[in-house]
């Protein structure tokens, strides 16, 4: 089970490496989907399955879908694929930077993997992550209102950004 979690961690790194060294945004989105699916699996292995499902729905099902539509708007009709030299050079360069950082930062106690069980919090035995997010609605209600207000404002920001100045709101791209 430990090795499975470490394998998920390695896949997470590979997914973000794919995003960073992408030959074309189509393949970058594939890497991002891989990284988020593996990240959800990692969180389930830690026990916080509610946070994992929130990530799945909001990130994969909301934000990445919008990204995929935008990639179809904005990317090349004839994309470059994985097998070009440029991609390999970028990928190796990024891996080299990370390795240099790890060597300089010290590589102590690599094999300690410590996670704790999460299934009870206090005398009322609610799930750890449910009870934490529920605080968002009770004690943290100010933060909740600020976040909701920010999301509403962003709708108007996006509307103003794509308005097209004096040429009308809807325009064929």
């Amino acid at each position, binding site marked *: 089970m430990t090795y499975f979690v*470490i394998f998920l*961690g*390695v896949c*997470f*790194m590979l*997914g*973000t490496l794919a*995003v*960073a*060294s*992408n030959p074309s*945004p189509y393949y*970058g*989105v594939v890497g*991002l989907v891989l*990284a988020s699916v593996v*990240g959800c699996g990692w*969180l389930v292995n*830690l*026990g*916080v399955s509610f*946070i994992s499902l*929130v990530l799945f729905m*909001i990130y994969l099902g909301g*934000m990445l879908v919008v*990204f995929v539509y*935008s990639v179809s*708007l*904005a990317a090349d009709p004839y994309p470059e694929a994985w097998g070009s030299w440029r991609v390999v050079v970028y990928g190796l360069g*990024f891996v080299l930077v990370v390795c240099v*950082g*790890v060597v300089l930062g*010290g*590589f102590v*106690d*690599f094999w*300690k*993997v*410590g*996670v*704790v069980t999460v299934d009870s*919090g206090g005398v009322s035995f609610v799930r*750890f*992550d449910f*009870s*934490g*997010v529920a*605080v*968002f609605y009770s*004690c943290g209600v100010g*933060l909740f209102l600020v*976040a909701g207000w*920010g*999301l509403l404002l*962003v*709708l108007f*920001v996006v509307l103003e*950004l*794509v308005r097209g100045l004096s040429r009308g709101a809807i*325009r064929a791209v």
Partner: protein
Amino acid sequence: MSPLHFSFYSAFTFSSLGLAFHRTHLISALLCLESMMLSMFIPLSMWPVQNQTPSFTITPILMLAFSACEAGTGLAMLVASTRTHGSDHLHNLNLLQC
């Protein structure tokens, strides 16, 4: 450094390097920003688990909300750039002339 900490440290580093070395498309830079956000979400949800403090589980949810705002704004700028210049290529953003 434990292997899990190393995973999201290096994932964040890869994403920020991908953002720094942008190439052709603006949307590649936006995808790297999204993967930076993802690689911060995972440790933010791991941290209350390891410290056994359930209240800090709000932090990843809040971060997801604000990152959705940021992604929406970035995509709106992408659409604005495509409408003005015809594509989202970064060499179109050349007002600075240097």
